[in-house]
């Protein structure tokens, strides 16, 4: 990549962007903010080191994850991505509680329904018994 089309990383670091710049594929010049986030949190040399240690086919995903973590940390300097993890864990706990509550209510309705059904069966059986008694009596 020539100087006139430096990647966002090299532009930010005010250096020449070589043809084989390791950061260029993941920090294009049209999205400078992406690099600014990771540079602020991880530092350019750390990102470069981390990406260099990975096979090429995994570097894109790694860069994207680092961008996400950096962005989270910029938004929330105290908890970063850990704040998101905590929120999701809370959502899971609430959902599980809610499901248990609803299952309890379903069990209640089901028991009520069965109780009513049983009572109705008993009423019907008594009625049949009475009908049969009276018909025997008449005959």
């Amino acid at each position, binding site marked *: 990549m020539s100087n006139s089309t430096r990647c966002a990383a090299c532009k930010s670091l005010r250096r020449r962007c070589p043809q084989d710049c390791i950061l260029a594929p*993941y920090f294009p010049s049209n999205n400078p903010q992406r690099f600014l986030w990771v540079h602020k949190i991880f530092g350019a040399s750390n990102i470069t080191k981390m990406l260099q240690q990975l096979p090429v086919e995994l570097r894109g995903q790694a860069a994207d994850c680092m961008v996400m973590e950096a962005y*989270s940390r910029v938004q929330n300097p105290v908890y970063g991505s850990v704040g998101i993890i905590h929120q999701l864990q809370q959502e899971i706990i609430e959902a599980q509680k809610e499901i248990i509550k609803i299952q309890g209510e379903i069990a209640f309705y089901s028991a009520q329904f069965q109780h009513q059904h049983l009572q109705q069966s008993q009423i019907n059986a008594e009625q049949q018994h009475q009908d049969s008694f009276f018909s025997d009596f008449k005959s």
Partner: protein
Amino acid sequence: MASSSSYNSPCAACKFLRRKCMPGCIFAPYFPPEEPQKFANVHKIFGASNVTKLLNELLPHQREDAVNSLAYEAEARVRDPVYGCVGAISFLQRQVQRLQKELDAANADLIRFACNEIPTALPAPPGVSSIQPMAPRQRPVEFSRRMGNEGDAFYQPSAYSHPYILPWSDNPSGDTNDGGGEGNNM
């Protein structure tokens, strides 16, 4: 060897960096010498000067939580150099989605029981009041999947248009320049 501000051995950070641990060392309260790996991970992923800058931007009472969350993220990234703690976020998101479906199904069952399964034409047996069907249950909890949550002490609302964008969703970013994910601005 110089003592840390606590008089004892230098903090884990100064030990790692092989420098004097001065009184007032910003790392000393959060990187005790008994936990060398904690600083080693943080240093490897974020670097000492970045951590110093981050801590200096925070109020003193926020620093412990910040260091612990940085240590968590650093360890996650050491264990998983590609996804880091985003892997955990992805896993938890899938759990939330699964539970959401389960909750919807349970709600549907409840509505069915409450509105349809209780026969309203039955005579009320003596001593037992007739059952009034419950009003259809509203979705009890809105599981906001925004990164932010107003009023939550943990973090501020995010400017994400698509929260929790996972870079490896349908369009793997690979070497593309679009930052991965679906329609995100990153």
